[in-house]
């Protein structure tokens, strides 16, 4: 190992762990001791990353308050040192961290809340793609519809939350008192996407969630309607399917439709 590589390794170790070995190679400045000067880097490291987390998870910060958020943030920084050159992706493991690390894992609303904020962040700067309109759908002859397949917009993501985190998020967004966190018997099925430039989310019924998930896998409209028929009135399945599809198209959730293979 070169001397430069060894020195960088020890400097990084000093910042991440508090080890003082590198101080032997750092002189005092004319006005300040080396420990204090090295401390500038140590302080900046964690505070910069926690600040980035505050930016990514603005409403989780509101929900937890300064002290609890920063304590959580420092725990995350220690558990998940950044491995990506772009700070944009640093907090990406936060939902998993909150789900698995105590004491946060005892409050499942936190992981769900972070999942929702992450999904909205990811939708915000997801890849661009054209969206289809009602006219694109109308161009297909009625007999072609059973064979239609659909391509979701790159920003679209599905989330199943086990708590009322979405209701808590909406209350905080509206600057209102959030409801008490509760676990749900049925998951809260969300569809998150970007409409033009604005991240959005929509709560889905079990039926619509099933149809979206299967449509995203490439099943044809005809098969999707057959599946819908197992959820509710079979005679109304095609109409319900067309209604869901209409909603997706007008919301800008689809970037492509094609007729058969």
């Amino acid at each position: 190992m070169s001397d430069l590589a060894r020195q960088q390794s020890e400097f990084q170790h000093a910042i991440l762990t508090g080890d003082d070995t590198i101080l032997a190679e750092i002189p005092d400045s004319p006005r300040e001791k080396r420990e204090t000067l090295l401390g500038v880097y140590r302080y900046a490291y964690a505070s910069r990353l926690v600040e980035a987390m505050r930016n990514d998870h603005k409403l989780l910060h509101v929900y937890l308050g300064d002290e609890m958020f920063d304590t959580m943030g420092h725990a995350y920084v220690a558990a998940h040192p950044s491995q990506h050159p772009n700070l944009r992706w640093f907090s990406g493991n936060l939902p998993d961290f909150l789900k698995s690390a105590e004491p946060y894992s005892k409050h499942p609303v936190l992981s769900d809340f972070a999942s929702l904020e992450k999904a909205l962040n990811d939708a915000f700067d997801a890849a661009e793609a054209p969206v289809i309109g009602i006219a694109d759908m109308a161009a297909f002859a009625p007999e072609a519809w059973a064979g239609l397949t659909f391509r979701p917009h790159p920003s679209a993501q599905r989330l199943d939350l086990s708590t009322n985190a979405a209701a808590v998020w909406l209350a905080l967004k509206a600057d209102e008192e959030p409801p008490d966190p509760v676990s749900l018997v049925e998951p809260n099925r969300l569809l998150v996407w970007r409409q033009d430039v604005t991240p959005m989310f929509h709560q889905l019924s079990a039926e619509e969630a099933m149809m979206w998930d299967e449509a995203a896998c490439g099943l044809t409209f005809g098969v999707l309607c057959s599946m819908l028929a197992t959820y509710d009135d079979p005679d109304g399945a095609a109409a319900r399917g067309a209604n869901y599809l209409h909603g997706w198209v007008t919301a800008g959730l689809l970037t492509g439709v094609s007729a058969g293979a």
Partner: protein
Amino acid sequence: MNVASQTPVSPAAHLKQPVSDAKPPFLGFGLGLRAQHYDEILNGDPAIDWFEIISENYMIPGGQPLRILDRIRARYPVVMHGVSLSIASTAPPNFEYLASLRDLARRVEPKWISDHLCWTGVHGKNLHDLLPIPYTREALDHVVGRVQLVQDFLGRAIVLENVSTYVRFTNSEMTEWEFLSELSRRSGCFLLFDVNNVYVSAFNHGYDPMTFLEGIPADRVVQFHMAGHSHMDTHIVDTHDHPVCEDVWELYAAALKRFGWVSTIIERDDHIPPLDEIMVEVERTREIAHRVLPPMARHTG
């Protein structure tokens, strides 16, 4: 002569594409682009000659930031300024990062691409800080090689900035300005002279900032940064969260006298004020340059 041909270090040097080493043009007096000012810029017509973007803020798949950047670059010259090149790191080069940087450059067509003389991490970790290096011959050889690699990858000479430092290393064999001068001479990179960083480092390490200024080759400097800092009595931290202080304005005037007409921006990264407030500082960079330098006709970048 291209940059790569000056100091070939690779046996495959003859396979390299030519690297443009043309000195970038003088752009005038600009501002670091921040999201807080998007609306005021696009809805108004601020007297800003050019913008510097933080490259990583736009190294994303899509969405509003890139759409706004497209609109701004259609109206203003843009320069890309990165914080994660980690040019001095002894870790293997991150070619995924470089490819993303190159993709953004193809979209933005920046007047130049800059980053910092520093490292940001080793062993697969990124500390997201501009970490100091020892000014040794070993470090110089290492950084020269990395700069040449990056320049070959991007097909253009890059621009490197002096960072604010809080520590020095006992094994340094030369000064920072000697290191920067030699780095620029050997690699063909240009220099971004951060006036505030010179002031901060000079205070922290107890030398005269004018010595630094006089030690930098004038023909290699293509940009100035101006920013504020936080004074802690015994040391200064480069926080970019205050207006530029009077001492740094004085140093800016001295830098103009030494380096001539150099493209300048105001950098603000925290406690970002409304655009009209920060425009006062942009106008001051312009006013000082016109006051201390000979007429504009003489500057050609």
